[in-house]
């Protein structure tokens, strides 16, 4: 009896060992992982150089890891198990109240040197461009505004401290503080539940706040809201692959007095005339509906010929905010410093920039 049980067991185990091997090496490779936002490893090529340096072995291991059978299902199972045993913090994400996922950032994650360097660069930049108005809008993340939703006693980095440091250290720059206005609306849907970005509503309230610093009154009645998808599962969902969570809704605010505009991307490499890229709704990262994603450079030319040219130095938070600004400027330029390799001062001169807005979220300053 024992012998038979053992034989069956051995057969099952060998099958478990061999199955994935056959799957990995004898079926077609997966190329791109939508949930991870990266390309998966390809079959490693054996050459004398990479054998001696050990690189072949590393490539082989990445290949096995990336092409493993049921990879995402097993990952989802791991998350489920962790949730079942009461874990409220998985892979750098807090499972907060009301089905919100909030990014877990700790004080030990703050790179103080980077923070000070960024502030210094900003001040340097302001000095060189002091003939233009410069405004800074650091968007607080949900881990500050929605703090009450975090699991009880959960640790989170002191974002107020970071924002206060930035606010008090910048010279000749108008600091637009969004903490009050966003806190006032914290019971509304101003951050996504499954993504680290703010919702269009959140960026609208911030636009109203921006308006106060720029002598512009914003009437919420001049927009009609349209739900473009109810099926958005964002970056924080990707860290968990928990399919039992509620998806997010993405809303766009259509201006009743819509202005005409044309967009050119990446120094004129392509064009479009819609800030909303509806094709992206068919992909996984639906937040890319705003401007189609992040480009090194983007220019929007409107038919408001008021000779005001705005430059926005940005991260991805700006994408949802930009549509609101279009009617106030003749040209709106967007530059993403992670990918922009040209000389910024020359760019500013060449395009006759009259105003500069730096718009990013707190984490861009400290990581």
């Amino acid at each position, binding site marked *: *009896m*024992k*012998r038979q*049980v*053992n*034989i069956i*067991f*051995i057969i*099952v*185990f*060998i099958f*478990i*060992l*061999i199955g*994935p*091997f056959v799957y*990995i090496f004898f079926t077609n490779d997966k190329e791109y992982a939508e*949930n*991870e*936002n*990266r*390309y998966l490893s390809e079959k490693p090529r054996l050459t004398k150089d990479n054998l*001696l*340096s*050990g690189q072949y*072995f590393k490539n*082989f*291991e990445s290949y*096995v*890891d*990336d092409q*493993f059978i049921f*990879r*995402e299902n*097993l*990952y989802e*199972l*791991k998350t489920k*198990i962790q949730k079942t*045993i*009461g*874990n*409220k*913090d998985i*892979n750098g994400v807090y499972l907060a109240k009301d089905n919100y996922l909030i990014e877990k950032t*700790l004080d*030990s994650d703050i790179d103080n040197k980077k923070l000070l360097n960024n502030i210094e660069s900003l001040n340097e930049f302001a000095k060189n461009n002091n003939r233009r108005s410069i405004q800074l809008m650091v968007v607080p993340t949900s881990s500050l505004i929605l703090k009450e939703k975090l*699991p*009880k*006693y*959960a*640790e989170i980095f002191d974002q107020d401290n970071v924002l206060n440091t930035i606010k008090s250290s910048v010279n000749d720059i108008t600091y637009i503080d969004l903490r009050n206005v966003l806190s006032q609306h914290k019971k509304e849907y101003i951050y996504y539940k499954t993504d680290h970005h703010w919702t269009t509503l959140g960026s609208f309230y911030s636009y109203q706040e921006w308006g106060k610093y720029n002598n512009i009154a914003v009437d919420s009645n001049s927009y009609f809201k349209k739900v473009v998808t109810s099926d958005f599962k964002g*970056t924080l969902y*990707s*860290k968990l692959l928990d399919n039992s969570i509620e998806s997010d809704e993405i809303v766009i605010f259509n201006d009743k007095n819509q202005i005409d505009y044309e967009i050119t991307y990446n120094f004129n490499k392509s064009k479009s005339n819609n800030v909303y890229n509806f094709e992206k709704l068919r992909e996984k990262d639906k937040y890319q509906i705003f401007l189609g*994603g*992040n480009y090194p450079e983007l220019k929007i030319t409107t038919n408001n010929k008021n000779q005001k040219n705005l430059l926005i130095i940005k991260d*991805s938070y700006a994408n949802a905010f930009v549509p609101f600004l279009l009617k106030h400027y003749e040209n709106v330029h967007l530059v993403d410093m*992670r*990918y922009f390799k040209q000389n910024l001062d020359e760019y500013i001169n060449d395009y006759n920039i009259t105003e500069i807005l730096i718009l990013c979220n707190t984490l861009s300053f400290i990581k």
Partner: protein
Amino acid sequence: MVFSSLNFLFCFLPIILIIYYLSPKSVRNLILFIGSLIFYAWGEPIYIFVMLFSTIFDYTNGLLIEKFYLEKNQKKAKIILLNSVFVNLGILCFFKYSDFFISNINNILNINIPLLNIALPIGISFYTFQTLSYTIDTYLRKVNVQKNIIDFGCYVTFFPQLVAGPIIKYKDINNQLKERKESIDGFSYGINRLCIGLFKKVVLANNIGMLWTEISNHPISQLPILTAWLGALCFTFQIYYDFSGYSDMAIGLSKMFGFSFPENFDHPYESKSITEFWRRWHISLGSWFKEYVYIPLGGSKKGKIKLFRNLLIVWILTGFWHGASWNFIVWGLYFGIILIIEKFVLFKYLKKLPSIIQHLYTIILVVISWVIFSFEDMNQGYLYLKSMFGFNHTGFINDYLIYLLKNHSVLIIICTVLSVCFIKIKDIQKKKWYPIVINTGSILLFLLSLCFLIGSTYNPFLYFRF
């Protein structure tokens, strides 16, 4: 290569098992030898030559010692032995300890010799001790000379124990090189041990280790007492499940090829004294030092003073073996002194105390020892101990501790319960339901471990990587 990787479990292991069992018995040691070399070269394409050198060197020494004995020339045989010891320890010291010695000399003499920064060849602390056990025992006539270089190479490089032990003395398996029996029951036992070990390492050790990392990332001098203790406890569990998990996998894997390895851990956290602890923790290391250092120095048979000296030497060396840093020496000495005190003073009192006090006494001393062990920077280690005993005036508990306990209570409880498991395996092994339960359980543990292994390869980026 690492056991707890998809690469090892799903590529290397099935391939070597299939080739092994399809081959005739006469070729099987060669297959293990070549397979083990591939296993080693996978991670270290260059340092494999150091290991090959050790193998060929001591194989030759064995032949020479045998030759000189046959010529009745004990003196020359002794020279070969001393040469072997000197060269093996020399290689170990060079790769592992040279920078330690250089930086200490720099500090004492106030000069600035540049460090060598040599990478440590994997497994060198293990295989040099193994080849030494061969030459010493050949000299002492405790084993016959091994004339087959393949068999000897198979012993030295055998992949299950190559990287993290147990330290297998040559005489413990020399018969198994030629006469071992692979069997169905043995193979399934091997799979059981492998699955249990994998679970301990990937599910328990790695996760409780993350908790330790998170706690110790906070400013140490600000940790309240219980939080500091929780951190130390996490490390205590991490090192146990990591090390014993690896040993379980080694024992299981070797059994799948018909080898029976001696046990390396025997529920050490159940001990009632430090003396007992060291009979249950890293048994193969204690045994090696006892046989090849303690007893040759005279052991306990040459009077009290020499006994003290021998114990202190053995424990300093045991500590130093673990790493090239002063905290490890302090750690070894810490145990050496406690063992001496237990042997001469404490033991007769300890025995009379209630069991629970004996257990608490032991586990508290063990947890403290792990704090010394985990901080190479002894200033940090000292600060941490201060936090544990309230000398940093940071209070007893904080909100963070409550959060950790709520979030990770299941993991902590499982780690505690499994480490003091009072079920004797031998009792339940004979039950009718045992095969089904252990085998099904193994499969489940394996799948659970697989989930967590995948977890560490899953890597989402917030922004697209160009």
